[in-house]
């Protein structure tokens, strides 16, 4: 009976030692998981900042695109106006040339 009790105590001590070792290992695992979690949190925050910066850059680029479209519209409008003016100017030049030619012809023919 005593031998049984001694064996029981021995098994109990071994169990306690094994549990202490397990606790120490679990504490080490917990510390490693905490470090991993902190690293993941840092990466997550950095990714959030990165996304925010990229969103801002997209906003600025959209603004630049809008302004460039405005510039293109103004330039197109101005180009159309200048084309119209050039057409009118050509017409006037043709009419002036015809009038001058007519007057010259009349002068040559002795009308004046």
């Amino acid at each position: 009976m005593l031998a049984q009790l001694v064996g029981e105590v021995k098994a109990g001590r071994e169990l306690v030692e094994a549990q202490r070792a397990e606790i120490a290992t679990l504490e080490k695992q917990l510390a490693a998981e905490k470090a991993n979690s902190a690293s993941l949190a840092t990466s997550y925050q950095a990714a959030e900042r990165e996304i925010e910066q990229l969103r801002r850059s997209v906003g600025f680029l959209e603004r630049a695109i809008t302004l460039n479209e405005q510039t293109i519209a103004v330039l197109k409008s101005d180009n159309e106006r200048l084309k119209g003016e050039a057409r009118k100017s050509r017409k006037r030049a043709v009419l002036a040339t015809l009038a001058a030619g007519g007057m010259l012809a009349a002068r040559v023919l002795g009308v004046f």
Partner: protein
Amino acid sequence: MAGRARQIFKTAGGAVSHFVTTRPMSALLVAVTLGALASVAWQFAGGVVSGARSAITSNQVQATEAQSHEAQVQAGAAIASANETAVERKVNDQVRERTIKPAVEQTAREAAAAKERVKGARSNYEKATNTNALRRGDDLGALHRRNCADLALLYPGERFARCQ
């Protein structure tokens, strides 16, 4: 004053009328010349207006181009900042992958092994306790007597409490 102006216009009108009736071709030439001069003046005025409009357009274009350039610079700064953050994040990711993750895996393996050891130790303990007659509810008097006999065998000559 009005009467004098009316008289001047009347005199000028009479002179023009006289000129047109006496020398019609010359009057026509003068009229065409005046028309040509008016046309040149009109074109000049049109050029001035066109130039002014071009200047306004140029100012508008310059303003929008400057604003667009500023927005592009700000976008570039934001992208550069995002790239810096990305580099920091990647360095952190590499550190985690190279040092922290292996440590996590190692400690997980150690924890699993420790758990197995505990399992074995618990099994041994349960076997030891299950074979204990005391826990099986044997006759406690007989058990006590056997314990005292065991003690007498192991420690001859020693005295133990409650074994006398």
